[in-house]
C-alpha cells in the first residue's frame, strides 16, 4: 500500500470554482412528529472531500439516507451533475454513481468478504450458465482480492463469513464495497468509528485516493482532527439545517465546534 501523505496536509482544490456535483436544497424530512431535517441544504463538488458535521441529532444520518435513496425527503430538491434527480431508491442513487457506507454497515454477516463486495452485482459465468444465473465465484474472488489489495484492506481469510471478522475488518469491507463501485460520489457515515489507529489511517488514505481519482467523498465524522486532516471543505448541520460552510485550510477545531453548538452562525437559511 501507499504511505500516508503526512497527516494534516490540506490542499486547495476545486472549491467553489466548478459547478457542484451534488446540490441539495431545502430538504425536509419528518418521522412522525419529529422533524429531522428542516430545510437542510448540502453541496458537494467533484474531486473534493467534504465533511458533514453536526452534533448528535443534527440530522446527518437522515440527510445521507435521503441523498442515497434509502429515505425520501418530504420536500426539497436535489440536483446531480446539473440536472434535477429523483433519488427514490438505493438503486436509483447507484445508477447515478453514488455509493454509501452506512453507519450500520449494511453487510450480510453470513457471507464472505467477496460475496459482500459483489452483493446485488454478482458476476455471472459467460454463456448459457450465466443466463441460468450461475455465479462466477472464481472471478469475483479474484477481483475482490485485487480490490482489497488496492485499497490496503487486510483480511486473515477470504473464506470466512464476515460476521466472524473484527469490527474494523468488517468496516473495511463496507468501505471497499462503496469505493469499488462508486463512479461519482461516496457517502461515508462514520467509516472510521470502529477502527484502530492503523486501520483508521488506511481508510483516510483510501478517501484521499478516491478524491484524487476525481470523485466526491462526503465524510460524516465526530472526530474533528480527522475532519480537518482529510477534508477540503466542511459543512455544518444543526437542528436539521445547514448553518455553516468552511474551507478546511482556513478553519480550526474551535470554529467548527462553535458552529455545531450554535455559538457561531454564518447562514440563516442554508
Amino acid at each position: 500500500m501507499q504511505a500516508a501523505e503526512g497527516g494534516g496536509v490540506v490542499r486547495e482544490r476545486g472549491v467553489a470554482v466548478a459547478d457542484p456535483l451534488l446540490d441539495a436544497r431545502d430538504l425536509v424530512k419528518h418521522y412522525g412528529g419529529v422533524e429531522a431535517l428542516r430545510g437542510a441544504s448540502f453541496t458537494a463538488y467533484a474531486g473534493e472531500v467534504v465533511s458533514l458535521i453536526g452534533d448528535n441529532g443534527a440530522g446527518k444520518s437522515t440527510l445521507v439516507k435521503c441523498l442515497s435513496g434509502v429515505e425520501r425527503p418530504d420536500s426539497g430538491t436535489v440536483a446531480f451533475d446539473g440536472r434535477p434527480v429523483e433519488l427514490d431508491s438505493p438503486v436509483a442513487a447507484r445508477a447515478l454513481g453514488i455509493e454509501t457506507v452506512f453507519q450500520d454497515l449494511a453487510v450480510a454477516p453470513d457471507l464472505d468478504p467477496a460475496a459482500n463486495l459483489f452483493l446485488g452485482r454478482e458476476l455471472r459465468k459467460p454463456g448459457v450458465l450465466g443466463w441460468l444465473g450461475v455465479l462466477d465465484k472464481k472471478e469475483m474472488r479474484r477481483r475482490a482480492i485485487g480490490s482489497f489489495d488496492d485499497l490496503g484492506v487486510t483480511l486473515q481469510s477470504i473464506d470466512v463469513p464476515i460476521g466472524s471478522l473484527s469490527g474494523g475488518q468488517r468496516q473495511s469491507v463496507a468501505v471497499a464495497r462503496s469505493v469499488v463501485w462508486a463512479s461519482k460520489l461516496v457517502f461515508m457515515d462514520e467509516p472510521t468509528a470502529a477502527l484502530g489507529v492503523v486501520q483508521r489511517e488506511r481508510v483516510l488514505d483510501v478517501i484521499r485516493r478516491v478524491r484524487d481519482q476525481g470523485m466526491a467523498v462526503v465524510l460524516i465524522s465526530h472526530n474533528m482532527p480527522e475532519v480537518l486532516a482529510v477534508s477540503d471543505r466542511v459543512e455544518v448541520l444543526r437542528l436539521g439545517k445547514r448553518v455553516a460552510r468552511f474551507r478546511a485550510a482556513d478553519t480550526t477545531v474551535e470554529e467548527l465546534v462553535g458552529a455545531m453548538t450554535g455559538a457561531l452562525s454564518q447562514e440563516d437559511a442554508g
Partner: protein
Amino acid sequence: MTPQRKSLAKRLVGTNTLWIALVLLLLIAVFGALRPDAVLTVFTLQTTLVETSVLLVLAVGMTFVIITSGIDLSVGSVLVFSGVTSAMTMNSLNGGDATNAGWGVVVVGLLVALASGAAWGLLNGLLIAKAKIPPLIVTLGSFGAALGAGQLISNGSNVSGVPNVLSNNLGTGTTFGVPNLVILAAVVTALGALLLGTTRFGRHTYAIGSNEEAARRVGIGVTRHLMAVYLLAGVLAGLAGFMAMAYFRVASVTGHDTDNLNAIAGVVLGGTSLFGGAGSIVGTIFGVFIPAVLRKGFVIVGVNVYWQPIAVAIVLVAAVWFDQSRRKARDRS
C-alpha cells in the same frame, strides 16, 4: 497482504456438513455392527431411501425458506391438498376411477399437483413478503386452511383410484435397481443444491436471510425474492404430494400432521440456521436421513418400542447441541 485461501481439506473440516455426515456414518456403523446381516443389505438401503424420498423433497424447499430466516409450517397440508386435487382430477378425467388411466391423465395429475402447491406457496409468499405478516403466523394459517380445503373437496376421506401406471412406475418401479422415487428425489435435491449453491438466486437467498435491510439497500428485490422462495417450497410440496400418492397408491388426508416438523428437524439437523443466512442442501440430505436411519435401525436391532421416540429425540438434540458448541468455538477463535 493478499488474503490466502485455506486448503480444501481445511475448509471442509470447518463446515457443519462434514460433522453431520460423520454422525450419520457413525449411526450406520453402530447399527451395522449390531446386525450386519440385516442392516448392510441392498434391501434395507433401498427401502430406507424410498421411505425418505418424499420428506427429502419437502426438506429441500424448507431449506430455502429457513435460510431466508422464514419458516413454512404448511408443507404437510399442502402435500395433502395437492395429492387430493391431483387424484380427484385424474379420477374425473377417467370416468370416476383412474386406476387404469394412461400416461396422459397422469401428466395432467402431475400438473394439477404442482399448480395446487404453487397456489398455496404464492399465497404464503404474498402474505409474508407483501403484507409483511410473520411467516410463522401465515403458514400456521395455511397449515390449517390447506388441510381443511383438502378434506372439504375429498369429503374428508382418502381418495383412491390412483393410476396403476403411476404407482407401478414412480411408486414402486426401479431403474437399474434404484427405485424411481429415489431417482426423482435425487434429481430434485441436486437441482435444489445447484440453485442454492451456485446461482444468483441462491446467493440472494442467503443475503436476505443474513441481513434483509442490507439486501434491500444493495438493490436486491427482497419482496419478489421471498415470494419466489415460498412459491418454490409450495411447488415442491405439491410434487411431494404427487410422489406420496404414487407411493401409497392413495391420496391420504390423514397422517401428514407432523411432516412440517420432520422437514424442519431435518433441515436444522443438517446445519441450516433457524436465524437464516447459513445452511446447505447437502447438509439437509444428511439431516433428513439421520432420523430415518435411527427409526429403522432401532426396529431392526430391537430397541424397546417405548424407548424409540426418546432415543430419536436424544440423538437429535445431541447432534444440534454438538454442532452449535463447535460453531461457537470457531466463532470465538
